[in-house]
C-alpha cells in the first residue's frame, strides 16, 4: 500500500513537476522575449535620447554663439550623456554576439552587429572631433575662427544625427521582428500550457483512480473477510493476493484465523472431554449416592437389629425364670404322674411347649448376646465340609446338585468354629429349604484383601425386594414352622467376628449370601501358619 501511495504520489508529483517545468519554460520564454522587446525599447529610447542630446547640443551651441547664454554646462552635459548612451549601446550590442535569442529573431545578426559596431566606431570618431571643435569654439576669443569652427561642428553634428537616425530605424525594424516572434511564441506557449495542464489533469486523475482502486479493492476484500470471520465462520479466508501491506495484513489475518480455528477445535475437544468427565462424575456421584444409601440402610438395619437384640435380651432374661419354673414343674408333674393319667399327655405337651419356648428364649439370647466364643485358628473350608456332613443325609439333598468351589489356599482365620458352623448350617439349610423341587447349591470360598469370603448360593424361590431388608430381623420367617431366629443369630455371630453378611436375591432366580471375615491378628496367623507347615497344627476340628 505504501509503495502504491509513494509511487502514485511520486508520479503525480512528477507530472506536476513536468507540467510546471513546461509551463515555467514557456513563461520564461515569453518573459525572455518580452525582455528582449523591453531591451529593444530601451535601445530605441537611448537612440532617441542621443538624437535629442545631439540636437540639444547643437541648439545650446547656437544659443551660446549667438550670445543668448554663457552657460556651457548644458551643452557639455548633453555631449557627456550622449557619450554615456553610446558606451551603453556599444556594450549592449557587444554582449549580443553569439546570442542564440538574437539569432532566433533576427536573420544575419552577426553581420548586422558588425555593421553596427562599424557605425558606432564612425560616430565615436565624429563625436571626438565634434567635442574638440566644440571646446575650441566655445572658448575661442578669435572671431576669425568662429565661422569655420561653427560650420565644422554643425556639419559633424548633422552627420552624427543622420547616422543615429539610420541606426534607430534599424532598431525599430528589429523590434518589429522581435514582436512578431513574441506573438508566435505567445500563441505556441498558450497551446502548450493548455495541453500540458489538460495532460497533467487527466493523468493525475487516472493515477489517483488507479491508486485509489489499488488500495480500496484489497481493503474491501479484507473487510468482507473480517466480517465473515467475525460472524463465526472460521473456514473463511481473506482473498488478497497483493504483495503490499494489505497482502501482509491479510496473510497475518488468515494465520490468526487458522490459529483461531485450531483453538476452536481444541476447545470442542476439551468441552467434549469435560462433558464426558461430567457424565462420569455424575455416574460416580450416583454410585456413591447409592452406596451411601445402602450403607445408610445397612446402618439403619444394624441399629434396628441392635435395638431388637437389646430388647430381646431383656425379654429373654425376664422370661427365662418363669419358663424354667414352668418346665421344672411340668417335668416334676410328669414324673409324679402315672402313665395312665389322662392329663399326662397334656402335661407333656406343656413340657414340650415350654422347652420350645426355652429354645426360643435361648435363641434370642444368642442373637442379642452370643455366647462367649473361643477363637482359634480356623479353616473355613473345613467348617463348610463339616457342615455338609450334617446335612448331606437330608432327603431334600437328593434333588440338589452341590457345587463346591473351595479355595485350597484359603487363609485360616481367627474365629469360633462352633459359631461359624452354626452360621453355615443355618444358611445351607435355608438354601435346601428354598429348593423343595431341587436345584443347585453352590459353595465357594476365596481369599480377599482383608481376609476371606464365603458364598452360599441357591437357585431357589428367592426373596422379594421388599423383604430383603427384613431377613436378618428376629422372628422374620417365610416358613410356617420357622422361629425366624436363624438368620438373625447368624447375623449376630458374623458381626461378633468383625465380619459382614450380605444377601442378593431375585424372586424365582435364587438367593446368594456372602460372608466376609477378617484375618484379625495377622501376626499370630502367620506364626500359626508356619507351625501348620511344620506339622504342628493341633486346633483343627
Amino acid at each position, binding site marked *: 500500500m505504501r*509503495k502504491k501511495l*509513494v*509511487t502514485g504520489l*511520486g*508520479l503525480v*508529483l*512528477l507530472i506536476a*513537476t*513536468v507540467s*510546471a*517545468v513546461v509551463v*515555467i*519554460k514557456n*513563461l*520564461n520564454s515569453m*518573459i*525572455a522575449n518580452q525582455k528582449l522587446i523591453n531591451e529593444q525599447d530601451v535601445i530605441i529610447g537611448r537612440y532617441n535620447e542621443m538624437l535629442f542630446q545631439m540636437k540639444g547640443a547643437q541648439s545650446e551651441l547656437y544659443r*551660446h554663439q549667438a*550670445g543668448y547664454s*554663457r*552657460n*556651457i*554646462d548644458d551643452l*557639455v552635459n548633453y*555631449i*557627456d550623456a550622449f557619450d554615456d548612451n553610446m558606451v551603453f549601446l556599444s556594450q549592449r550590442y557587444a554582449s549580443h554576439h553569439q546570442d542564440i535569442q538574437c539569432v532566433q529573431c533576427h536573420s544575419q545578426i552577426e553581420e548586422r552587429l558588425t555593421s553596427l559596431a562599424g557605425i558606432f566606431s564612425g560616430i565615436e570618431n565624429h563625436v571626438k572631433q565634434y*567635442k*574638440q571643435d*566644440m*571646446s*575650441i569654439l*566655445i*572658448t*575661442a*576669443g*578669435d572671431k*576669425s*575662427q568662429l565661422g569655420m569652427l561653427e560650420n565644422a561642428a554643425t556639419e559633424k553634428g548633422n552627420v552624427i544625427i543622420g547616422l543615429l537616425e539610420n541606426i534607430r530605424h534599424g532598431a525599430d525594424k528589429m523590434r518589429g521582428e522581435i514582436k512578431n516572434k513574441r506573438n508566435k511564441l505567445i500563441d505556441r506557449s498558450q497551446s502548450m500550457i493548455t495541453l500540458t495542464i489538460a495532460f497533467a489533469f487527466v493523468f493525475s486523475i487516472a493515477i489517483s483512480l488507479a491508486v485509489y482502486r489499488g488500495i480500496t479493492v484489497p481493503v474491501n476484500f479484507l473487510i468482507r473477510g473480517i466480517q465473515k470471520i467475525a460472524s463465526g465462520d472460521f473456514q473463511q479466508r481473506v482473498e488478497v493476493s497483493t504483495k503490499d501491506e494489505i497482502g501482509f495484513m491479510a496473510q497475518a489475518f488468515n494465520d490468526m484465523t487458522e490459529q483461531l480455528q485450531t483453538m476452536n477445535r481444541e476447545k470442542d475437544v476439551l468441552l467434549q472431554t469435560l462433558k464426558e468427565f461430567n457424565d462420569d462424575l455424575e455416574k460416580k456421584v450416583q454410585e456413591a449416592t447409592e452406596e451411601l444409601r445402602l450403607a445408610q440402610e445397612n446402618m439403619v438395619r444394624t441399629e434396628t437389629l441392635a435395638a431388637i437384640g437389646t430388647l430381646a435380651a431383656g425379654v429373654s432374661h425376664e422370661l427365662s425364670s418363669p419358663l424354667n419354673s414352668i418346665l421344672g414343674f411340668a417335668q416334676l408333674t410328669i414324673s409324679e404322674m402315672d402313665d395312665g393319667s389322662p392329663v399326662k399327655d397334656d402335661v407333656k405337651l406343656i413340657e414340650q411347649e415350654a422347652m420350645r419356648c426355652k429354645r426360643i428364649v435361648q435363641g434370642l439370647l444368642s442373637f442379642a448376646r452370643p455366647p462367649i466364643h473361643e477363637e482359634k485358628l480356623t479353616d473355613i473350608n473345613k467348617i463348610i465340609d463339616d457342615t455338609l456332613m450334617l446335612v448331606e443325609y437330608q432327603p431334600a439333598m437328593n434333588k440338589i446338585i452341590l457345587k463346591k468351589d473351595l479355595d485350597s489356599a484359603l487363609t485360616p482365620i481367627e474365629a469360633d468354629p462352633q459359631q461359624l458352623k452354626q452360621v453355615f448350617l443355618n444358611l445351607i439349610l435355608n438354601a435346601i429349604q428354598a429348593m423343595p423341587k431341587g436345584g443347585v447349591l453352590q459353595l465357594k470360598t476365596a481369599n480377599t484383601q482383608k481376609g476371606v469370603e464365603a458364598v452360599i448360593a441357591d437357585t431357589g424361590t428367592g426373596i422379594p425386594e421388599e423383604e430383603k431388608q427384613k431377613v436378618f430381623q428376629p422372628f422374620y420367617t417365610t416358613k410356617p414352622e420357622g422361629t425366624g431366629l436363624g438368620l438373625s443369630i447368624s447375623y449376630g455371630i458374623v458381626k461378633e467376628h468383625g465380619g459382614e453378611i450380605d444377601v442378593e436375591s431375585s424372586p424365582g432366580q435364587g438367593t446368594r449370601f456372602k460372608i466376609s471375615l477378617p484375618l484379625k491378628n495377622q501376626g499370630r496367623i502367620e506364626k500359626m501358619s508356619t507351625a501348620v507347615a511344620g506339622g504342628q497344627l493341633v486346633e483343627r476340628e
Partner: protein
Amino acid sequence: MLKPGTATVIKLWLVLFPMLLSCSNSSSGTDTVTPERIREHSVTIALLPERNVFEQKKRYKPLAQYLSDELDMNVKIKLLDSYGSIYQEIINKTIDGAFLGSLNYVLNHRRANLEPVARPVEKGGSSGYCGVIFTRRDSGLTRDVETWRGKKIALVHKKTMAGYVFPEWHLKKQGIQGLNNHFRKLVFLGSHDAAVLAVVKGQADIGAAKDLILQKMLAENAAMKDEIVVLATSLSVPSNSLCLRSGLESGIKNSLKKSLLSMHETAAGKSALQALNAVKFTETMDSEFGKLREMVVEIDLDVGSLPFQDKR
C-alpha cells in the same frame, strides 16, 4: 535496497528538480533601484576652460562626487566658457569657488575676495606649473626672439599666466614691449590645448601654454612629440588651486579644505585623485604667488583696471 519503481521515480526527480530550480532562477533577476539621496546644501565649483571642456568635466567629476559623499552636500561642477567670466560668477555668487590658474587668482584675489585653499600634487611631486613658448620643429624659430618677429602666435587668454603674461614678460625681458608690436597676429584660442593644437596643425607659428598640458598632449601623441620644440620656460607658479569666495560659510570652507587635504588617505579619495592624475592635495598659501605678482608688475599689467568681462 530501493525497489526498481521507486528508484526510477527518484532518478526522474533528480533530473527534474534541477530543471525546476533553473526555471525559477531564470525567472528571477529584478533590478533593485536605490533612490538618490536628496542633500540639503550645495556648493558650486567652477572650472576654467584651460583645456578641452569635456576633458575638464571628466577629470573633476570624480572629485565632485567624492566631496559630495564626504561632506554630505551637493558639490557641483560648473564649466566656464571663458577666463573672464570667473569674476562675474564670483560677484554674482552663482559659484562658491573655482579651480583657478595662478594669474586668475592674483587678478581676482582682492577684487572678488577669493581665498586659496588647496591644489593637487602630481605623481612626480610637483604642485606647480610653468608657462612655455613652443613652436614646430620645422618652423625655423629659435630661442632668439628676433626669429619670432612677424609670426602668428597662438595664445590662450589675456588672463592666463602661461597663455599670455609669460610671453609678454619674456619679450619685455628681451627689450621688446608689447606682443602686438612683435608678432604679426595674436590668436586667443581660449584653452591651452587649443593653442597647442593650433601650432601642431600649422594654424599658428608659435604658441604659449601651460607646460603640464603640453607635456600631457605630447605624451598622448608620439608623433606630436617630435614636432614640437619648447623655446622658453617661465618660473614655476602654483598649479590650479581651489579658491573659495570669502563670503562662503566658514564651516563649509573648513570641511572642504579638510576633505581635500586628507582624501589621499581613503580608497575613494585615491580613486578621485587618480582621475586628476594627482596623488594628494596640498595647502595653497597666498604668499606662494609673490613671484607671479612681481611678473605682473614688470609687464605693467594694471590689475585694478583690467576689464574682466569678455567681449562677444
